[in-house]
C-alpha cells in the first residue's frame, strides 16, 4: 500500500513533528517501502491467537504508593532556561 503526501502531512500533524518540503519525497518513498514490507503480516492466519503485549506474558508488578524519591526539582530544572520560581514557562495556550 502506498503512502501519499496527504497522509504524510496528516502523520506529521498527529505526531507534532514538522516534515520539510525538501524531505517529503524521501519520506514518501521510504515509508511506502516500509509499509509494503510489513504488509506481509496480513496473509498470516492469527485467528484464536492472543496478542502478546509483554515478552514474558507477565502482568505489571505493583508497589506500595509511597514516596521513594527525594525532591530534586532544582537539579531537574537545570535542563531548561525557561523556568520561573520553580515553574516551567510554556507558550501561551489560552487567549
Amino acid at each position, binding site marked *: 500500500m502506498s503512502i501519499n503526501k496527504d497522509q504524510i502531512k496528516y502523520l506529521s500533524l498527529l505526531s507534532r513533528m514538522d516534515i520539510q518540503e525538501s524531505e517529503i519525497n524521501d*519520506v514518501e518513498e521510504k515509508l511506502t517501502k*516500509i509499509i509494503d514490507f510489513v504488509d506481509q503480516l496480513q496473509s498470516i492466519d492469527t485467528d484464536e491467537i492472543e496478542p502478546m503485549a509483554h515478552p514474558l506474558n507477565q502482568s*505489571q508488578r505493583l508497589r506500595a504508593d509511597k514516596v521513594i524519591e527525594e525532591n530534586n526539582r532544582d537539579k531537574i530544572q537545570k535542563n531548561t532556561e525557561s523556568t520561573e520560581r520553580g515553574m516551567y514557562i510554556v507558550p501561551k*495556550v489560552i487567549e
Partner: protein
Amino acid sequence: MTTSDIHRMTLSQLKRNLEAKNLSSREITESFLKRISETNKSLNAFITITEEQAVSESVEADEIIAKGKAKSLTGLPFAHKDLFCTDGILTTCASKMLSNFVPPYDATVVKRLKDAGTIMIGKTNMDEFAMGSSNETSYYGNVSNPWNLDLSPGGSSGGSAAAVAAGLAPAATGTDTGGSIRQPAALTGVTGIKPTYGRVSRYGMIAFASSLDQGGFFTKSSEDAALLLTEVAGLDEFDSTSSAEPVPDYTASINNSIKGIKIGLIKQHFEEGLDETNKKVLEEALKALESQGAEIIEIDMPNIGLSVPTYYVVASAECSSNLSRYDGIRFGHRAENFNDLTDFYSKTRGEGFGSEVKRRIMTGTYVLSAGYYDAYYLKAQKVRQLISEDFKNAFEKVNVIAGPTTPSPAFPLGAKMDDPIEMYLNDIFTIGANLAGLPAMSIPCGFVNNLPIGLQLIGKHFGEESILQCGHQYQQITGWHKQVPEDFK
C-alpha cells in the same frame, strides 16, 4: 603481560593484576585514556570523554585497594553507551534533541557498576535513539569499524563495540532492542550479551521500544560478561518490569563442561539470507562445540521468518509513543520561532529528530492510527505470540539455540543508507530473541574476508548461565575472541 599490553587484557585479567598489585588503577585508567586521545579521531567511538573525573577516581580506587577494601570491580575503567543516564554528565542518545541534556540521576546499570567500583571513562557514540544498524544515524557522525575504517561497526551500539574491539575500553554497556548489542559485537569481533527481558533494569535507559529494550555488555570474553552480569542483574524497585528471579553467580557455572548439552540449529536460519562463506565458518564453530560433547539438533521454527516485519510494527509503535515526551518544555532541544503551541511542538520535534527517527515515529503513528490499529499493531502482536511459541516449542527439545548473528560481515559505510529494508534485514537473525524476550549473545567465531563474524547463542528465559557456559567453553578451545585489528594492536 606488561603494561604495554593493558589495552589487550580482559576485564578479568585486569582485575587479577589489580588484586596482585602488578598494576595500579591509575596506570590502567590513564593507559585507556591515552589510547582514546590517540585514536578516537579516526574511530569516533566516544561522544564524551570524562578524563579528569576518571583519573581522580582512579587515584581514589588505588587508595581503596591499598586499604584492602576493594569491591568486585574496583579501579576498572568502563565506557557507557550514551543512552544510559549519567548523573551530571551529558547524555545525548546521539540526538540533536538531547544534545544539551544533563541527567539528574544515574541509570540503575550505571549506578550498580559504579557501586561495584568501576570508573567511567566516557560515553559512547550510537545510532540516534538506538534506531539504526550501522551507527550512521548519529547526530555526532558515524563510528568506524576498527577492522577497516571504511566499514560500519554495526549499530546501534557501534561506539561501545568499536571501543572494546580497538582497546579503548576493557568493557562497555550497550542496549539491544532488535540486535543492537549482538550485531555490532559480531561485526567488530567482540563478545556481546543481551540478557533476558527484565533481567537488567531499564531505569535510566532512554526508552526506544519498552517491550523489547534490554541493557547488556560488550566484553573481550564470556568470562567478563558473566562477571558483569552477576553485578548488574536483578530486581530494581525503579523498574516495574525488572524481574525478581534470583541472580546466580554467573562466573561459577561457566566452568562446567557442556558435555551432553543440546544445541538447536534453526533450520530456517541456514536456508536463506545467510552468505555461503559465513555458513562454512559457522559450521566449523558448531563442530568445535560438538567436539566438547554438545549434541547438535536441527529445529524447525515456521514463523521465525516473520520476525523483521513484526518487529518494525511493534518497535515503531512503541517508539512513537515513547518519543512523544520530547516536547521542548522541560529539557532537550527547544524551537525558537513559532506561532502557537502546536507549531512550537512541531518545530521543536522537526528540528530535533534526524530522518531515521522521524521515519520510525511516522511508521509507528501510522500503525497505531484510527483504522489501521487492528490491521497492523494488533496483528503484529499476534504474530509476535506465534514467533514466541516457536521458541517455546524449540526449547522443549534443546537447552540452547545456536546460529549466525548476522547474514554477512561488516558492510561499507553508506552502503545501506538508501534502502531502509536492506538495513533492517541486517537484524534478521537477532530480532527473534527480542520479540520472545530471550537472553542471547554473540561471540567471535571466525573470519570472512579478514573480517570477524559472530556465533549467536540464544537461551531460555533466565537461561543466561547456559549461553555463558557455552560461550566460555568455546573460548577455552578457540582463539577468535583474542584477535585484535591490525591497526589497533
